[in-house]
């Protein structure tokens, strides 16, 4: 039963107030995209054992989307940040690196 702090409204929200929606920072490939890019966009997922960046919506709260960095093995939450960004904030990446020295770093 996760608890995630919504960066938009500041509430530490219960998992049941949130909606999870998979991997974050996926590049949209629309009209004109190659078959490979389209397939990657729609289906291919990192699914890591370990650090994962993912999308959440505070659906029973402020209604806003945000991103979370979470470990899929321990469920530790490294941080949450607004969804309006193409990659995770630098400080967060540094913080994770410190906690998980073996982590390869953020890959899209």
């Amino acid at each position, binding site marked *: 039963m996760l608890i995630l702090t919504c960066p938009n409204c500041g509430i530490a929200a219960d998992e049941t107030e949130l909606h999870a929606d*998979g991997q974050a920072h996926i590049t949209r490939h629309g009209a004109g995209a190659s078959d490979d890019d389209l397939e990657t966009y729609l*289906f291919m997922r990192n699914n*890591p*054992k370990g650090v*994962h960046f993912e999308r959440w919506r505070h659906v029973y709260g402020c209604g806003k989307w945000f991103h979370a960095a979470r470990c*899929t093995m321990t469920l530790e939450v490294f941080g949450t940040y607004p969804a309006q960004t193409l990659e995770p904030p630098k400080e967060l990446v540094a913080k994770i690196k410190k906690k998980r020295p073996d982590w390869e770093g953020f890959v899209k």
Partner: protein
Amino acid sequence: MKRYSAFAIAREAARYHTGWERAWRSPEPKSHYDVIIIGAGGHGLATAYYLGKNYGITNVAVIEKGWLGGGNTGRNTTIIRSNYLQDPSAAIYEKARSLYETMSQDLNYNVMFSPRGVIMLAQTEHEIRGYQRTAHANALQGVKTEWIGPERVKQLVPIIELSGPRYPVLGGLWQSRGGTARHDAVAWGYARACSNMGMDIIQQCEVTGIDKSDGNVTGIQTTKGAIKCNKLGMVVAGNSGHLADMAGFRLPLESVALQALVSEPIKPCMDVVVMANTVHGYMSQSDKGEMVIGGGTDGFNNYTQRGSFHHLEETVRALIETFPMISRLKMLRHWGGIVDVTGDRSPIIGTTPLGNCYINCGWGTGGFKAIPGSGWAMAEVIATGEPQGLAAEFGLNRFQEGRFIDESVAAGVAH
């Protein structure tokens, strides 16, 4: 291998059962095998079994990071049915179901396949239409199913409440030869048969790397050292993404927790398996008497084999509405498994970007019932090197082509 029988038990009883031999050997890995299968779940073991049985390939190792059958095969709600909508699904699940019918005899191990019948309840007009569609398709596919009305449902399941205030039971899709089997026994029976064919089942041995050369696999790295092979099959369910990562490719799937629970055992009160998909609950009663209950998946990636409690609430809530008498039963235990869910929620069986590496995954929430069919199909793919037969439509390429095998379309779910 000594055969199991009532006579053998009587003989052993006389000497207080001191004479039974091991069900399977626990060998150390050899340096090379013709085929290595990663994952000693039902699918991996069945693949090995049919490699031996159908193709005579027995220089095979099945590598298991924990104890065999301890993945999802050891933690599922054991529902077996084949009334799937889409042709490729109906074909492989029906093959599996028919193999379950004779599995105890084939393996000389009682897997307790119990074709007690499965009802999928229709609780909305939409569901009625979906199931009628499936019934029509099944009739043409040669899968025996039947649409039944509420009275018949009540006859089959006397404890059901037909007129729930929210979702009355409007009928159901009934597969009389669906049912359950003893999940652990399926893994154990295959393991015993594989071991008996001379295959090595290596437990407590985790695969940590895949050795490659020129786009082919040469062997694997494990916690018990390096092992070489001519062909590699990956059959690791929830860990597929992780293994693919080691091998250097990505898969169109995500790993999430799916949960189940059992009640305390009670005397028999429900003879068939009931699935209520509108309200997300399914239930059967095991031979020991527990009500075995399955629920929904979590929305987030997770490898902990623990799920979130609120899914159990939802499931139990729904089932109490459907079976009011369970309100005063108690939950004995609940647990989770990590299931691999693909983009269209159907499995993947076939080739990979690596030449001699084959994959079988994506069974998600519903692959127990498929074990023998999947093993059969996967063995064919590995033996021939071609995605063909039952596996033909389940290749990875379907995602790029947009050729989905989507079972959710007719009010269907995968369990």
